């Protein structure tokens, strides 16, 4: 997965046609304790250099999957954000004792 740079390092290009830069950044944050990830923007998108200790060769592949996971979450937020926000707001307001009507929302 990606271009081999050194024994425990891979470079992966995330094309901006497919992946938002935000998705790559979110995934890098999730992987911050598993690997050292350097991100560089380019015309084509974001290049990630994934470096890690140990023999686990799955780290780069797992990182690529996490970027896809984050991208799919971003896609979904656009589609389902309204319904999700209604439910999340209701749950939090009910727990804290506020009501939706008090805040002037329907």
């Amino acid at each position, binding site marked *: 997965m990606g271009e081999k740079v050194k024994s425990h390092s891979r470079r992966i290009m995330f094309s901006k046609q497919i992946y938002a830069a935000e998705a790559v950044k979110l995934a890098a944050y999730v992987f911050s304790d598993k690997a050292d990830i350097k991100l560089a923007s380019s015309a084509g998108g974001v290049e990630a250099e994934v470096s890690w200790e140990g023999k686990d060769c*799955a780290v780069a592949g797992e990182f690529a999957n996490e970027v896809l996971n984050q991208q799919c979450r971003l896609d979904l937020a656009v589609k389902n954000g309204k319904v999700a926000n209604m439910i999340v707001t209701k749950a939090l307001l009910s727990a804290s004792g506020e009501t939706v009507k008090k805040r002037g929302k329907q």
Partner: protein
Amino acid sequence: MKEKISVSVSLKSYKADTIRYAAYAVSGGAYVLLGPGKKGEVEAAFEPKPNASAKYRAGLQKLFESELRDEKMRSEIADANRELREFMVLKALSAADDAGTQAGDYAGLTPAQEKELDALIAEVEREIKTETAGKERKDPLGITKTWEEKHGSEPFKNKNKK
């Protein structure tokens, strides 16, 4: 050598987010990287995970293509019903709540109630103090004895018989 499977998908047939989700759906068994292919196409590169079975590897491309078709239909249904769905949830959430209460209703007690409660707590504390203080301890219920003091610790020897 790591096995790789590449599948080209036309953006005329499937939208980018459809392709992304279909690839995501099979990412439990494979590492996935999407990239631009030929003009108007996306190339999906799959690398089966080390523990993926031979059957899975053989069927991975078909699985992805099936997910593409499913996600296309799902996306169309979702788009056509988005407002209806939002209406239904809003209707359900807006119905009068008979279960919830205001936090302020039970946030505290009146001064008189607090005083009564403090008196009751002091009474319990006095009882416990009496039970535990002094040489002649009254413990008719054996509350202060631990399980070991009462029964001893018996090492497990045999299987428990019913």
